[in-house]
């Protein structure tokens, strides 16, 4: 790893890391602030839920959830946090090397006396460090919000820890898959459409998969592998998590190989 590349990359990520961290924090905090009110009218709430169409509940992974319980409510809002985390990680993945090519700085950087493997490792570590900051912030805000608003209601720690621990793998999937796709296409002109498509695409796949009961399709999406409802109810990971881990490994190895052989596109 080159420390100078890492430092620069990290600095470039910092603003975005802060923005995303604040955004996800606000989402978790404000959402969970509703919990006391809703929990007090638990019966009303569950009654209302029962009137929703089954498909809708499936789409949001809400079947069998007791919204009046601390973790039930948390797992519901965690899905939205996951969407944010997915977009952030995909952003960093898609932009990791493509931005340098777009802004023509690749010609500058790659003519320096460092190998491509080293460049990529430094960039990956910088992006991962950024994601980890967001990850830590999510932990702090989650525990803070739960303790602030649970009003004495108890909850099990283990499922919550498992849920929060899953974030790191979840982020890595979108980071590495984004990266490998960016290297498979000739040029990424704009990062946002790609990361939005990947994150929402995967989410929609999981939502529709549940609705249609088509398990083959939904098995490929990390939103299914890390379904908050499943982790909370079973206090364990779905074995499908291994698919996510495999996706990370394949994407990373593929990215290194592709980047080592890549012809850096020139301006024209």
């Amino acid at each position: 790893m080159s420390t100078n590349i890492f430092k620069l990359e990290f600095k470039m990520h910092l603003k975005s890391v802060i923005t995303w961290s604040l955004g996800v924090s606000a989402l978790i905090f404000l959402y969970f602030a509703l919990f006391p009110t809703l929990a007090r009218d638990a019966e009303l709430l569950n009654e209302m839920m029962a009137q929703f169409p089954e498909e809708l509940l499936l789409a949001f992974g809400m079947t069998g959830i007791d919204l009046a319980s601390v973790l039930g409510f948390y797992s519901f809002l965690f899905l939205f946090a996951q969407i944010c985390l997915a977009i952030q990680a995909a952003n960093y993945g898609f932009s990791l090397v493509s931005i340098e090519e777009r802004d023509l700085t690749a010609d500058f950087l790659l003519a320096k006396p460092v190998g491509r493997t080293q460049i990529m490792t430094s960039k990956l570590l910088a992006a991962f460090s950024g994601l980890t900051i967001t990850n830590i912030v999510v932990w702090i805000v989650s525990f803070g919000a739960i303790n602030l608003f649970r009003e004495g209601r108890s909850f099990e720690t283990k499922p919550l820890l498992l849920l929060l621990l899953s974030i790191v793998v979840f982020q890595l999937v979108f980071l590495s898959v984004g990266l490998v796709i960016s290297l498979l296409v000739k040029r990424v002109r704009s990062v946002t459409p790609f990361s939005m498509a990947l994150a929402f695409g995967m989410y929609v796949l999981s939502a529709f998969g549940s609705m249609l009961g088509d398990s083959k399709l939904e098995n490929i999406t990390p939103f299914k592998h890390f379904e908050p409802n499943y982790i909370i109810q079973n206090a364990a990971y779905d074995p499908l998590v291994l698919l996510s881990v495999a996706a990370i490994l394949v994407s990373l190895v593929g990215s290194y190989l592709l980047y080592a052989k890549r012809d850096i596109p020139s301006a024209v």
Partner: protein
Amino acid sequence: MSIIEANNLTKYYGKARGIVDVSFSVDEGEIFGFIGPNGAGKSTTIRLFCSLIYPSGGSAEIFGKDAIKFGPEIRQEIGYLPSEVFYYEGMKVLDLLKYSASFYKEGSTKRLYELADIMELDLTRRIDDLSYGNKKKVGIVQGLLHQPKVIFLDEPTAGLDPLIQQKFFNLIREENKNGATIFFSSHILSVVQKICSRVAIIREGKIVEIQDIRTLQKDNYKKIRVTASHLDETRFDVDGVSNLEKEDGAVSFFFKGDINLITRLISEHDVADVTIEEPTLEEIFIHYYE
């Protein structure tokens, strides 16, 4: 000793031609010009030497070492000025140059300030806000600050005003005096003419000619213009004459061959004026294009 060497270097982008069978070698301490129209393959050649792209065939060597296999090691001693200006968003000039210096040996940071001073570059500005010419200056300083032994310049003078261009040439000559070998690509011949000792002409991906710049100018063509009364331009239409043109009472043409032949032809006329000049590289160059 040859420092930069291409052996049958070939690059295809998919099916599109980059360069084909390009071979040349540049000796230590040379300023080697590389000229050709846009799209001829100049940038492709340079980017192969910096291993930004990989050859489809042949080899590129610097210091006798393969440019790809020993890439990181070789690039320690390479300075590269890309043809297109680049910048990291929101970065100040000084930040970028310091970042660049951080890849090289100590002392590069000191040289950075000297170079910025010579090129009259404002270090405090954001690169995004700079004009094209000023961005080009950032590129120049970035490419030279580690005092490399080999310098690749890809269209370095585009966007520079004549005064700065002069300073830049002096800078290159100075680096050259201190032992740097320079590979200078441009599509503007007068620029190459000013500074290079030898040139390669590339066209449609292939090397057309490699020559000493003086040979190119002297041994080839003479540009002759004769003003006389009762001119019969067909008299000049002999072997070795090309681009024959007549315009009110004068003929002008290029001539390659025994000069006595022409002086005899001229003496047949009642000459009012005659000029025999070296053609400019541009004029020579046209022949390679036709």
